[in-house]
């Protein structure tokens, strides 16, 4: 089976120096990869390149073995297979949970169904199932996102990822603003849901949460510092990665 994601010698320029320089990475189906690095190491930039938001100046991105399609329709289908959990969640506050969950299906739906979603509750059974998977009450389906608590919103964002049914999950520091206990809960939830044949690239601030990952990739100042099986990551690697930075804030 083709790797879900291939990044080949990616370079992204920045003002004070390159944001990424010559980074290569391969994610195979079923792999769960943690992306470690301090603030400004280039983790978010790497995820933006991986989901197609930021085209690299140098290097190549392949999704399921294919480069980004030039035709608009084919590109949309490619994008539909890449799910991103954003740090700031990026839910639509004014719409209901149901409409937000269904928004993940827009790439697959005909236009009239996409418009009907703003008028009628569609795909309720599938949405209820997604809510159950993230331990949310069914009655929240009709609630506007703006009325939810922070924790509930995060779970809705994960449920949206489930509804998208993407084969590649990119997670941009979803644990950054959580207390240690909730961070561990959310991590286990995501790792439990993101099973094969999905591949996961999970950006993390905290090196104490590597349990459950197959591989760990370390980024430092836009360069690949190491790419090792999780069991092989030693304190020396982490010290080198975080040298001169504060990791206590998560």
């Amino acid at each position, binding site marked *: 089976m083709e790797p879900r994601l291939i990044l080949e010698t990616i370079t992204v320029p920045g003002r004070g120096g390159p944001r990424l320089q010559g980074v290569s990475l391969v994610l195979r189906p079923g792999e769960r990869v943690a992306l470690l690095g301090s603030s400004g190491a280039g983790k978010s930039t790497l995820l933006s390149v991986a989901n*197609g938001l930021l085209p690299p100046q140098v290097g190549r991105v392949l999704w399921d073995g294919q480069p980004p399609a030039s035709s608009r329709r084919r590109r949309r289908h490619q994008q539909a297979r890449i799910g991103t959990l954003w740090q700031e969640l990026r839910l639509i506050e004014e719409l209901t949970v149901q409409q937000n969950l269904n928004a993940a299906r827009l790439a697959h739906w005909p236009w009239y169904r996409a418009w009907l979603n703003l008028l009628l509750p569609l795909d309720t059974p599938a949405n209820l199932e997604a809510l159950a998977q993230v331990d949310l009450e069914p009655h929240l389906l009709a609630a506007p996102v703006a009325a939810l608590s922070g924790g509930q919103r995060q779970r809705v964002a994960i449920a949206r990822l489930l509804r998208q049914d993407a084969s590649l999950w990119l997670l941009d520091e979803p644990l950054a603003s959580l207390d240690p206990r909730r961070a561990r809960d959310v991590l286990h939830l995501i790792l439990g849901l993101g099973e094969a044949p999905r591949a996961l690239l999970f950006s993390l601030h905290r090196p104490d949460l590597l349990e459950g990952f197959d591989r760990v990739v370390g980024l430092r100042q836009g360069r690949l510092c190491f790419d090792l099986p999780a069991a092989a990551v030693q304190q020396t690697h982490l010290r080198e990665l975080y040298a001169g930075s504060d990791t206590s804030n998560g």
Partner: protein
Amino acid sequence: MAEALRWRSISLALPLCILLPALVLVPLAFILPSQVHGGGVDLIGRFFLAALHPSFDPMVVNSALSGLAVTLAMAVLGWAISLLGGILLGLASSRILWSTTAGLGWPATGIRRLLALPRSIHELLWGLALLQLLGLRPVVAVAAIAIPYSALVARVVADLVDGLETTRLDALRSAGAPAPVALLTALGPPLLPGLMSYGGYRLECALRSATLLGVFGLGGLGTELRLTLQSLQFRELWIGLWLLFAAMLLLEGALAALRRRWLTPRRLSLPEPVVTRQERRLELAGQEMLLLVLVLLPLCWVLASRLEVRLGDLTRLQPLPPFGVPQWQQVLDLPWPLLVGNTILLTFLSAALAIGVAPLSLLVAAPWPAARWLLRMGWALGRLWPPPLTALLLMFVLQPGLLTAALALGFHNLGILGRLLLEGVEEVPSGPREALERMGSGSRLGLLYGSFSAVARSYLAYGAYRADVMLRETVVVGLVGATGLGSLLLESLTAFAWDQLLALVVVYATLTLLGEELSDRLRHRLLGSTRAPHHLSKVLTDVSVDGFKMGESAQSARVSPERPATSP
């Protein structure tokens, strides 16, 4: 799906709400063919072709330039007087000021009620009435802008002052500070951003009003535009139009740059500056504003002397035909229900067109940046092109009547609403839209779900305000025989039928004040009914700056449930 189709489960989400008015296009598509006479299709073709090669004859260019200078001067003078008068009248109608200085509330209410009349009458009516009374003098156009605008500014200033936090004022007063000093110190700085933003907005309006007054013969570029259109000299017309277009874009750009520099409230949503930064900017803005006033004062003096605007002219009435015996029975016999009904229908049609077509066309253009740029240009033309001239142009291919008037009015307001919607879409957080596009939704659905959701409530609130303005503007398309109050008002004015004019003005003013009240209630309902999402909450807690700013102050809304009306 069958389960979903239960009647109770239907609920219109916000992005659909802003597109709903566009349904008016469906009946229009059926009715419009019956209105086409096709006699002037070639003229319309010639008109648009002339845009590509306007006349560069030095005489024509000079004439257009001097016309533009007169229009700009009329706009600046009218605006400056209205700003000064409006601030003074606004302070005089502020409840806080009266209660602080005299311990009374009723004078503020009384002054507010008195100001309702001048602001309910469109500047065109003021212009034409003054024209009849004083003859064609430069002061007429300036006064026509200044009178209703002063009342509008006054209302906004009063709302702003009354909507401000009074804790600082109370603290100063209890510390023994004299009332004027306490008021200036406590209320001056927080009042400044809203006032600056609103003042800039009114200058844009003044330019449009000055052009419109010109169309009705009060001088400047508007007069030239109308004359060249009526004599089918399209190449000569377009040079004037392009010059006006450039002036308007320059003005809008400069005002937008000042708004950004001074961090004054923006229209659809606001930047979220750090407080210290805002305070620093406010200090800077205060100094720069003072400088601007110092430049403006001599400029206004020079403009007034070049235009020969003398306030004393306002007292020199020209000989009028005898008033005669009022024919009240004839006035009563007028088809009032039809006149009022047609005016309301015209307002609804043009409002639905303007409010609905702006988001619809943005959606259609979403995948192509070039199309969005074209829309921007088209809307800019719509804003500056006075509705009566659009109506005249449409009459090359359409029969005169209500539909033609609605299209003309709708096109003009589409330019204003479209620009604001686009600004709003560009200002709201792009995260949700980007997230949807990353999931493969495509740019149209990304815009519909991600951006329209965020701007819908404010946009609809602004649409309600704009509909109220359109009700006033029905008078400006009266010349195409729209069979509403506007047509008859213009006829009565030119025929010196004072009894009929008085009755029409009373009905028109009552209607516009009722429309204003309805629009206020709708806006408050839209902006204050539900828990606001994070990016709107900033707007909702910001100061109230008339209906022009989509985000309205919840606080101000509570303090002052009525909203001021404004002209275009």
